[in-house]
């Protein structure tokens, strides 16, 4: 448990001092907003707005991949990852510390990106803020859990930046579809539809368990 706190604290403090990961993720998400807006048919009519939930989650996912790629890159310096693996505590706590740090950073980026999306497409998230935050949280949980596991693998492959999206994206479909459908429902009539939330809850639980158990096998001896 101390290890969890220590790793979480270390990751957040490092981020606070350098602020490179969150800033890179946020700038990237903003760029995705601009690029997607330019790629969409002209105008800001209702038709364009219908695509906002999907585009929003595309931006979140790409930004999360960018951040997760950095999550373990730091640990490679001075072979810190090997030292972590030798810690006497349960390795699951290392995973939890890393995953929670990524979850919190992604949450920040989600808030910023939603603000940018709201301004770009004229959407008011304020009336549905609570349920929207819940959907973002559930989506971010799935992304961070599996992302942390795969990031620990990808960082030790030859093409690390390339490997993470290849590993992550095909497995992220249930999270993305659940989150996009839930956001769609929220933006359409302000109520949170239950089936996508149910899918998100089940997916998060399954991914959480896989990532927690799988992490044991991913760290080197």
């Amino acid at each position, binding site marked *: 448990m101390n290890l969890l706190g220590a790793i979480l604290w270390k990751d957040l403090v490092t981020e606070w001092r350098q602020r490179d990961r969150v800033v890179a993720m946020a700038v990237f998400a903003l760029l995705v907003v601009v690029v997607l807006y330019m790629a969409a048919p002209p105008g800001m009519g209702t038709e364009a707005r219908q695509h906002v939930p999907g585009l929003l989650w595309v931006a979140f996912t790409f930004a999360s991949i960018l951040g997760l790629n950095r999550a373990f890159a730091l640990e490679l310096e001075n072979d810190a990852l090997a030292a972590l693996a030798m810690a006497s505590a349960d390795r699951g706590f290392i995973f939890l510390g890393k995953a929670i740090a990524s979850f919190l950073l992604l949450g920040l980026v989600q808030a910023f990106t939603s603000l940018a999306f709201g301004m770009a497409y004229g959407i008011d998230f304020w009336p549905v803020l609570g349920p929207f935050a819940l959907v973002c949280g559930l989506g971010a949980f799935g992304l961070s859990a599996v992302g942390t596991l795969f990031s620990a*693998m990808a960082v030790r492959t*030859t093409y690390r930046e390339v490997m993470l999206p290849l*590993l992550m*994206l095909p*497995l992220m479909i249930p999270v993305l579809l659940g989150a996009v459908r839930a956001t769609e429902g929220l933006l359409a009539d302000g109520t949170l539809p239950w089936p996508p939330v149910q*899918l998100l809850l089940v*997916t998060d639980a399954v991914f959480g368990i896989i990532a927690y158990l*799988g992490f044991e096998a*991913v760290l080197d001896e």
Partner: protein
Amino acid sequence: MTPSAAPGGRLTATIFYGLVVAWAIVVWNAPIDAVQGPIQKILYIHPPLAFGAYLGFGCTALFGALYLWKGEDRWDRWALSSAEVGILLCTLMLLTGPIWAKGTWGRWWSWDLRLTITLLQYLVYLAYLLLRGFTEGSERGARFAAVYGIAGMVLIPLNYFAIDLAGGRSIHPENLGDGSLGEGMGLPFLLGILMVLASFFYLVVRRFEVGGLRDVEAERAVAAERGEGAVAQ
């Protein structure tokens, strides 16, 4: 000399080639579908390839789990062999499907529940092979691949619900085996399944042998290098 370490290698090969010939003859003689025409004969290979592909992916996850549990190299080699053969069969299935669809539905692809999930599984196990290729150190690569192979399998039920939620209308025929096959169509279909299963086992066993020979060769190379080093000193 061709190294044929598997005792039943020649037997499985004979069974496989025999089935291919029998299947080809039976398919050639099968009645032509009144509505779809000759293109319906793709049915005698497409669903069997799907069974073979999923068998391959399932075996990859199963052997991966056994590798993580037991830590023996052979389970990893079985997992890799199953994944490669599964990918091969899945590629053939994804090629035959659109040909049939273009002739029957009038378009190559539909974002249907089953098609989408199969495509995703295909991408997952392609990533599995890439992960192996890009990981240095066979032991580490084996561990990573085992974890990823298992995660890829768990995804199937989740994706099923997810794509259903997205409105993946199923226009893919579902009712095989409920008497939907016309007269004279059951035998070629059955032979198709047997042929694909035989090819699956044959190829997996051969791939497993090749993996073993590579390991032996690698060990020999390392030993030779050490020997040379000792002489040089």
